[in-house]
């Protein structure tokens, strides 16, 4: 004898919110690292120019 039960479908929106949060977090982490690397490059160029003039 067969039996088939039914159940409520789970809503999908919590998964969408979770994915957006993860993407947001990843985007924030990578963007922050890019800002730090750009600042260091500018300082090194200034130092090189100064040394040449002094000689």
């Amino acid at each position, binding site marked *: 004898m067969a039996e088939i039960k039914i*159940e409520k479908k789970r809503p999908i929106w919590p998964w969408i919110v979770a994915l957006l949060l993860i993407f947001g977090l990843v985007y924030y982490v990578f963007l922050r690292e890019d800002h730090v690397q750009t600042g260091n490059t500018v300082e090194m160029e200034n130092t090189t120019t100064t040394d040449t003039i002094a000689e």
Partner: protein
Amino acid sequence: MENKDKNLYRLDELTDYKVASNYSDVRGWKIVDADNRTIGKIDNLWVNKDMQRVVYLDVKVDKALIDDSRNEVHDTIANDNGREFIYKEGDSHLIIPIGSVNINKDTKIVMANSISYDTFRRTGRYNIQHNFDRNYERSVLRSYYPNDPQSEFESNDDAFYNRREFDGH
């Protein structure tokens, strides 16, 4: 809709419900009788929302069986002119209580092991455009289980489904 009063719904009407995990969604599967003859295909599942389970399988009956029953009606009319018949054009569906079948997940076939081809041929069908009422349910159960006490079919509420024919155990 009368079926709504009985908490009876086609599963595809309940957009927020689905067949539970670990149970087979048999829509589209073939259904056979006690002698392994094809009766038709499972077209839909009738569920009782309060009981959260399927109570009937809705079968789209094979044309061959419809033709056979039509031939039987014609023979009956030829032999007995006063007899009334119920089949109308478009009556191509019938219902089977879930407890009356077994499910083979490997072959994807539903087996009505206790119901013969002749019984299916004689069981009244309904038109899917019009749904069915409790009287139709009673007539179907009487056709499948003629030896059951008739008083057991008299309930008008969900107690109607507290029977072995709807129980999978």
